[in-house]
């Protein structure tokens, strides 16, 4: 028991190890229970084509990305150029989910706004934002006015991105803005893997 005086040192190192590991974890990244589950269904108006709707089942048979965004979302501004660039020669379609475009903006007073006006306002704001921020990377954007679709997908912070396979099953969820690195190192390999599987 000569080395007894080293015991506190070992306890300290053990604690430091645990705490150091804890520092690397991101408490904002809550694992989604929806991975491996069918993408929740919805059918809502499209952002650009006013007389059309969009639903996940329209994309059956394809691998696709569902990207949750809004014009009031600050991180989306950083993500947007990456998406625009990616969309130029993307192997998969990116579907936008325009999340609470009007209600999500704390600066707007939406009390008593009727649904038609809200939809029109959302379209106008979202389209303008796309024009101002380098273009529209989305094949189609779905308009989720009240955030109900967001809740069904477990969205708790915009932007979020879901990777959905040919059978309409959610395979991966990316929380926060997509960066060139996360695209290259995580999303692209996963997309390639899903496409090979078909």
């Amino acid at each position: 028991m000569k080395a007894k005086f080293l015991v506190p040192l070992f306890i300290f190192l053990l604690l430091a190890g645990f705490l150091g590991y804890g520092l690397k974890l991101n408490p904002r990244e809550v694992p989604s229970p929806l991975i491996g589950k069918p993408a929740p269904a919805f059918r809502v108006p499209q952002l650009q084509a006013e007389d059309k709707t969009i639903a996940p089942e329209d994309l059956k048979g394809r691998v696709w990305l569902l990207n949750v965004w809004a014009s009031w979302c600050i991180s989306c501004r950083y993500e947007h150029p990456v998406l625009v660039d990616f969309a130029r020669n993307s192997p998969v379609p990116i579907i936008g989910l325009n999340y609470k475009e009007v209600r999500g903006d704390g600066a707007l007073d939406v009390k008593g706004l009727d649904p038609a006006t809200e939809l029109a306002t959302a379209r106008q704001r979202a389209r303008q934002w796309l024009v101002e921020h380098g273009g529209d990377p989305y094949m189609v954007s779905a308009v989720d006015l009240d955030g109900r679709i967001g809740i069904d997908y477990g969205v708790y912070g915009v932007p979020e991105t879901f990777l959905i396979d040919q059978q309409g099953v959610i395979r991966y969820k990316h929380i926060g803005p997509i960066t060139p690195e996360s695209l290259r190192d995580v999303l692209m390999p996963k997309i390639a893997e899903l496409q090979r599987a078909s």
Partner: protein
Amino acid sequence: MRRLALVAALSLPFAGHAGEAAPVADDPALEERVMRLSHDLRCLVCQNQSIAESNAPLAVDLRNQVREQFLAGKDEAAVVDYLVARYGDFVLYLPPFNATTMLLWLGPALLLVAGAGWLGWRLRRRVREAPPPLSAEEHARAAALLDGTAKPSQESRS
């Protein structure tokens, strides 16, 4: 004037509390049920608040969901299942007992048992290591020392 300014400055922090989330339903009994359940659900935006306490837009939306589902006749368990299906066990302040939460639930008990075991081991060892009782000769010497009649011995000087 300066005192007035001080009072104003000190009361500033309380101004933020003016915007408490207002109950919406007309039915107070229903509203109480909503709030009671909401206190057990974690807000995913501000993670150390329940959705009852938080004013984050998502918390408001989730409270509305809880209310709507109660109105549709669902019970507490069904509403919790609905939220867990979307946000995972993370929304529960009282997580279920399963493989991933085993350490969380059993950890404190394990620590207690380990600590008690270690303490017991130490105490037992201390008893074993206690010095043997004094012999009659040592007793006599100790008594002499206490009386002050003993001459300092050879050892005590060294």
